[in-house]
């Protein structure tokens, strides 16, 4: 059974002046159980709207979202979220952040402690449990965010530019961690990113979206996520296949950006 089904989703915002913005237009997507899918597109293509609909924070104007066959009507612990940054609870320690979900669910203390210890180990934060999160670096904070999400054992993990605020080197390291967690925990993952390279490296499938109205422009099936754990990431990213696809996608996005620029220029000149 499909992990996530987006069934003809449209999202229309009505503006105060009566105008309408088509953030998403008739978007359909099936994501298999355990698949990792990345979404890429110029700003304004509705990718964050898409993620918010999946998470249940927004309800679409038309269409339906189903996770494991069940329609999504609001946020829930079956769909974990990892945000760009600033979504950790800075008044709690690393452990308390990670144990947040299980604690809210009233799980037994011993079980929670075991889960937390195991997860901190997995994301490479052993020994940091008692630290306040604000003392950690950006990369480590995102490790906490990943562990916090996994602690709840969600079926699906939705990531909204999880590595977007990190410096380039940390970002590469964290990409490896995302792949490792995907393999180890077998979750269905949907990841939104601005980085073409990241989308190629992490996605079994890569969705390129186009703006105005937001829609799926093209889909790629990619072998790189599968290789990501056995091969050197540098080799993968330097492989001719990788480079060619990267250039193809980049020129596609540039074209879309230029169209947007052209549109807004003609709007301002009117």
């Amino acid at each position, binding site marked *: 059974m499909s992990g996530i089904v987006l069934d003809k989703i449209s999202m229309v915002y009505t503006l105060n002046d009566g105008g309408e913005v088509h953030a998403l237009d008739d978007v359909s997507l099936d994501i298999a159980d355990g698949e990792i899918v990345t979404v890429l597109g110029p700003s304004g293509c509705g990718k964050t709207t898409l993620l918010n609909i999946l*998470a249940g924070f927004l309800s679409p104007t038309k269409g339906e979202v189903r996770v494991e066959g069940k329609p999504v009507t609001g946020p829930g612990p079956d769909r*974990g979220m990892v945000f760009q940054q600033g*979504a950790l609870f800075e008044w709690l320690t690393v452990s308390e952040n990670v144990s947040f979900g299980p604690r*809210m*669910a009233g799980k037994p203390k011993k079980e929670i402690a075991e889960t937390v210890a195991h997860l901190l180990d997995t994301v490479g934060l052993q020994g940091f449990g008692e630290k306040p999160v604000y003392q950690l670096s950006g990369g480590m904070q995102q490790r906490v965010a990943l562990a916090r999400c996994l602690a*709840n054992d969600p079926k699906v993990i939705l990531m909204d530019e999880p590595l977007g605020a990190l410096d380039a080197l940390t970002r590469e390291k964290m990409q490896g961690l995302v792949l490792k967690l995907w393999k180890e925990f077998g979750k269905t993952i949907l990841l939104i990113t601005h980085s073409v390279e990241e989308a190629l490296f992490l996605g079994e499938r890569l969705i390129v979206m186009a703006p105005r109205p937001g829609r799926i422009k093209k889909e790629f099936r990619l072998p790189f996520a599968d290789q990501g754990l056995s091969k050197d990431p540098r080799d993968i990213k330097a492989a001719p296949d990788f480079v060619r696809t990267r250039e193809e996608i980049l020129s596609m996005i540039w074209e879309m950006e230029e169209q947007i620029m052209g549109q807004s220029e003609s709007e301002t000149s009117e």
Partner: protein
Amino acid sequence: MSNQKKPSELAIWLGIADTSFTRQKTVKFGDASAVNSGRIYSILIVIALVALWIISSVFGLVKPFYWPTIDGTIDRFIKLLTEGFRNTPLWEHVGISIYRVISGVLYGSLVGIPLGFAMGLSSIARGLFDPIVEFMRPIPPLALIPLIILWFGIDETAKIFLLFLASLFIMTIAARSGVSSVRVSKVHAAYSLGASRLQILRNVILPNALPEIFTGIRTSMGVCWGTVVAAELVAADKGVGSMIMIAKNFLQTDTVVLGITIIGLIGYAIEMAMRWAERRLIPWKGKG
């Protein structure tokens, strides 16, 4: 490097010499971190002022009616400590003023924080209380004294009610802005982790608002300290404010000066204590 002698710790502390890092800077004017403490001048000015006071006391340059002599002031201070002022020990005058401030801030917080939360979370509460809060906010608490005297007379209730009002609106606004400042991604994260609304209120919105609530308490303490002294000047028989007002009637300039000094020191101590408590209790402030 070697042609520079390392300045001594004492010289740096006094501000006679710059640290070796600052000395390497070629541009100092306009660079705030290149301005050293200048502590030597602080010490000199204090010494100069005290010396001036001693000289004017010895030679009787200023009438004690305008400014007390230093020995007279010290004598008065010992007298205040041992005998008190008008049969009330000095610590009781100080203590009752502090007690009034703390009561006012406490009651103000007990009502203001829940009110601010309601206003931050519900449109009905916001709509209901917004006009009242916005109307009361710019009114200096002292302007309420006549009305409060009409309602409560001049007893203890009146003073604490005044301070309650002074802190109430500060606390309401602080709590409301604390609630509104929560980043929506934190709330979304909590919902996605399975938290209920009540759990989000208790575990996300409340701790997120604590820094602003604490700033509110600090502001309230400062405002209430100013208000209590002024209120005691108007009507009270105990408290530091009343002490200096009554001393004025007896032309005891030395008691007045001592009272003003005590008021300043306590105001400073309150501010320092609140900052210390803030660092201890809310170390995550500004780090979200």
